């Protein structure tokens, strides 16, 4: 029963990793951009939820309703200006620019909000949990985050495979020049993909703040976990991202069960094993690496 609990806790945190990683995966899959500021954008979303939305009389729990669309707009604008300008130069520039963005965001947050830890206040919900068995506690917040992750990935999957805009996103990811020849403004489509990615990362950031304490420098470690999730699951596969997140979460919980210091280590070992044995990831296509 102890092991069942380890797996359950792993699955719960894995849902969060998947939610965090899907935007990273989308930006890389469509624009070939590795957004090194991805983790910091999540942290910004959490700060906006804690410090800014209360001014608009929106409780922190419901902040995602306004913060996610707001981040969608920010994502579109950042893509059409900063990131597109970097893509137009060369792929390496996008790494430098997003890394610079990451440094700027972290330092601005430190300057404005100090390095004190914050949480997104969800009231009494934080201590409530479902207790089906003597040693198994399933936190409602974690369960809600897992449900949100599954819902977001499912909606994204349906949007990409069924809608006209989703089809254009996939077409542009395959060959943006050919898409132009069919009358598509690929920069606009890149902007839409970035908007989706930023909206999901805002949800992830607020979820993070509900589950645990965050600080201006929390982005880095979460970005690492997001990378590991994408690589384990396979680039370009949304359900792979969910499985990757869960695999990472379970591995970490197993490590932590033996010794809390082994939590991150166990995840890193799983990541390295997958990279060595199946570099395209569990659900990725070999062609995606070409």
């Amino acid at each position, binding site marked *: 029963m102890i092991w069942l609990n380890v797996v359950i806790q792993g699955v719960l945190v894995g849902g969060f990793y998947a939610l965090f990683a899907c935007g990273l995966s989308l930006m890389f899959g469509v624009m070939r951009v590795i957004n090194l500021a991805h983790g910091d954008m999540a942290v910004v979303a959490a700060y906006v939820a804690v410090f800014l939305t209360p001014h608009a009389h929106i409780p922190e729990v419901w902040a995602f309703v306004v913060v996610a669309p707001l981040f969608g707009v920010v994502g579109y604008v950042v893509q059409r200006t900063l990131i597109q300008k970097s893509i137009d130069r060369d792929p390496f520039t996008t790494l430098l620019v997003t890394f610079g963005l990451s440094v700027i965001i972290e330092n601005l947050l430190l300057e404005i909000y100090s390095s004190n830890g914050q949480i997104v206040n969800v009231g009494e919900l934080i201590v409530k949990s479902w207790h089906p068995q003597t040693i198994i506690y399933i936190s409602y917040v974690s369960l809600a985050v897992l449900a949100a992750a599954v819902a977001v990935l499912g909606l994204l999957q349906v949007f990409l495979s069924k809608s006209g805009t989703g089809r254009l996103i996939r*077409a542009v990811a395959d*060959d943006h*020049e050919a898409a132009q*020849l*069919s*009358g*598509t*403004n690929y920069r606009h489509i890149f902007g839409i993909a970035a908007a989706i990615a930023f909206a999901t990362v805002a949800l992830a950031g607020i979820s993070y703040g509900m589950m645990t304490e965050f600080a201006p420098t929390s982005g880095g470690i979460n970005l690492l976990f997001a990378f590991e999730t994408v690589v384990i699951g396979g680039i370009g596969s949304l359900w792979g991202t969910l499985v990757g997140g869960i695999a990472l979460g379970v591995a970490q919980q197993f490590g932590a069960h033996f010794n809390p210091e082994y939590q991150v280590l166990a995840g890193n070992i799983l990541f390295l094993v997958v990279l060595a044995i199946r570099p395209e990831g569990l659900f990725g296509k070999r062609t995606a690496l070409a």
Partner: protein
Amino acid sequence: MSEILLEVDELTVHHGQLCAVDGVSFKVDRGEVLTMVGANGAGKSTLLRTVAGLHHQTSGTIRFQGVNVTKLAPQRRARLGIALVPEGRRLFSSLTLEENLQVGAHHAARGPFSIERVYELFDWMPARRRQRAWQFSGGEQQAIAIGRALVANPQVLLLDELSLGLAPIVIERIYALIPDIVAHGVGILLVEQDVTLGVGVADRVHCMLEGKTSLTGTSGELTSAQIERAYFGGEMSATSPPHESPA
């Protein structure tokens, strides 16, 4: 009175230092086929890509139905009615056949072509419309690429090296479509290395040599000897006749 669809005037294009297209002018009328012939590196593909907007010209103008499109982005030209079937097909490889056509039709103008019409032109397509584009043979991919361009209902169709890498029987089938397309009033600008093929379907022929126009005329009035000279360069064929026939 024929209607001029596409009018290219003194177009010059550089690839870095290299002058790939040097002061080329031509017109494409509604319902006619203009074939560009020339050896590898003569600048034909660059010319086509520049007309579609994928390359920037150094100088010169491109007019489409009287409108100067020289400064327009490729997608704006596509929506106006200029469609390029690029060299190497360039399908969306992870999308299905039908999705490739749907992307082509996303910004389509009104006109005779639709996905259903393309399915009539290529009767093997409906049964395989859910297959991914990368699963098709070269000839099939070329047909899908033509279909993807047609569903946008273009006024001018730019065809780049249709026969490249395809079996003769497949080439024959694809070329057999051209009269059908032209009959709908579409003007075609065809780039072809295979002179016999290209001149066979052409109303007029434009020869390019090292970026410059070396010969123009209607396909009826030009002799194969003239075209051969224009293809390889006059002096060269006088001193050392080409070993391989361009056809």
